[in-house]
């Protein structure tokens, strides 16, 4: 903190920045010649090789490898097999760049976004809606395959929503269903994920919306299980799983079919659909606000398969 070489007056300021402003207005012009650091803020550097304390052996110790600067490499233990060689190699991080990652989203953060009006609970919540609300940041180029719901904040969560994520923990599923909401997990291949996160740059490209690819062999079991509310699972089994989860966690499962928002809560995307309401094969013309749809048989057959 720079101290100006003058006395400060102790009157109570009546305007903001009061004391400092008054002092500045009454003093002579500040130049380099008027400034000096606060006493005690700057400590003198110890110059090696000079004076009583910096000189003599200059902080190098007495003789040996220490003073002469010929110490062995880091990790060397005098000939004993060093620690970093004694421990055997194991593939903890092998293939780490090929493992799918999921950005965590806690229920507490989701509740915060809904409370601040950044996410609309009256519409189905999609990854696009979450990214538009700046609630999560997903990087498909860093092996992110989407968002996972974490059950931190499950006890304070109180919102009825229709949410679609890529992975969800059991506690999170229970918390959402307890409040009368609907949760489903679905798979997006990396290209579809890039489109989902940034739809506007994709529409500006002028390419037709592609089909969403189905999950790979290792992910099919996850998305066909009713317990995970997978999008490929049997709806009957999902209903049974909802009841089972309600029994396990000890809450009464509210009946969604009698809800006024039932139509919104039951909205689901088709297996090959990326965006709500837009089918694969369509081209979006943003400057003219139009959608171009193909009519050729072969194209329609391909896109609806």
């Amino acid at each position, binding site marked *: 903190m720079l101290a100006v070489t003058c006395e400060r007056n102790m009157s109570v300021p009546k305007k903001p920045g009061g004391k400092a402003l008054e002092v500045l207005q009454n003093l002579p012009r500040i130049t380099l010649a008027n400034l000096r650091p606060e006493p005690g803020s700057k400590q003198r550097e110890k110059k090696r090789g000079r004076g009583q304390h910096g000189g003599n052996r200059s902080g190098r110790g007495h003789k040996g490898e220490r003073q002469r600067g010929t110490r062995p490499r880091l990790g060397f233990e005098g000939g004993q097999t060093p620690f970093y060689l004694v421990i055997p190699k194991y593939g903890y991080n092998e293939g780490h760049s090929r493992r799918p990652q999921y950005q965590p989203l806690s229920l507490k953060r989701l509740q915060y976004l809904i*409370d601040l009006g950044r996410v609309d609970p009256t519409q189905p919540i999609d990854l696009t809606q979450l990214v538009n609300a700046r609630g999560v940041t997903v990087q498909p180029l860093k092996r992110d395959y989407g968002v996972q719901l974490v059950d931190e*904040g499950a006890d304070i969560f109180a919102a009825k929503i229709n949410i679609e994520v890529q992975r969800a923990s059991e506690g999170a599923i229970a918390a959402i269903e307890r409040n009368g909401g609907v949760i489903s997990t679905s798979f997006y291949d990396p290209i579809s994920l890039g489109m989902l996160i940034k739809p506007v740059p994709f529409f500006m490209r002028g390419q037709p919306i592609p089909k969403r690819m189905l999950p790979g062999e290792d992910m099919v079991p996850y998305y066909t299980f009713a317990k995970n509310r997978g999008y490929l699972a049997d709806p009957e089994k999902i209903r049974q799983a909802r009841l089972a989860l309600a029994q396990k966690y000890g809450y009464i499962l509210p009946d969604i079919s009698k809800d006024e928002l039932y139509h919104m809560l039951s909205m689901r995307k088709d297996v090959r659909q990326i965006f709500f309401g837009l089918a694969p094969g369509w081209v979006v013309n943003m400057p003219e*606000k139009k959608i171009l*749809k*193909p009519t050729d048989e072969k194209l329609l057959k391909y896109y609806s398969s």
Partner: protein
Amino acid sequence: MAASFTLRGALLGVSRLRCRTPGPPAGAAGLRFVCNAGPEERRAGIIESTEEYKFVERLIPPSRVPAPPRHAGVTPSGWSPPADSPPPLPYVIRRSRMHNIPVYTDLTNGSRKMTLIRKVEGDIWALEKDVKEFLKEVTGKELPTQVNEVTMTLKVKGHFDGELKQWLTSKGF
């Protein structure tokens, strides 16, 4: 060039014109060409519609922070809206862009803990006095503070963001 071809097309027959719009010559049928025709024209094999465009509008990200909906009291996530009228104090602490209390913790050199209160307007020395009193009740110690009148911020030694945020919300900021 294009004019002569359209003339030739007209001379040869109407059926030709029906299948292909006047433009690039017949020999270029294998090449992909960008449609420069007017939007009202119906291109072969494409339907245009404006009904589903509302789904596209839903996907466009908003460029401004939306105003939070009206809440009466504390929300389930712990956020509470500011009071309708500012409290009768000589200072005012505005909310941040995302409608939160501007109290932040800082950690320098690995162990230097500080709490920063930003966006102060009015008499900052009165705020400093109140903060010192409040923290004396909470901790029992006189904590060193630093007032910066230029940036209108207040720094306190130690991490007290939770307590200060609650105290400021209870005041109505």
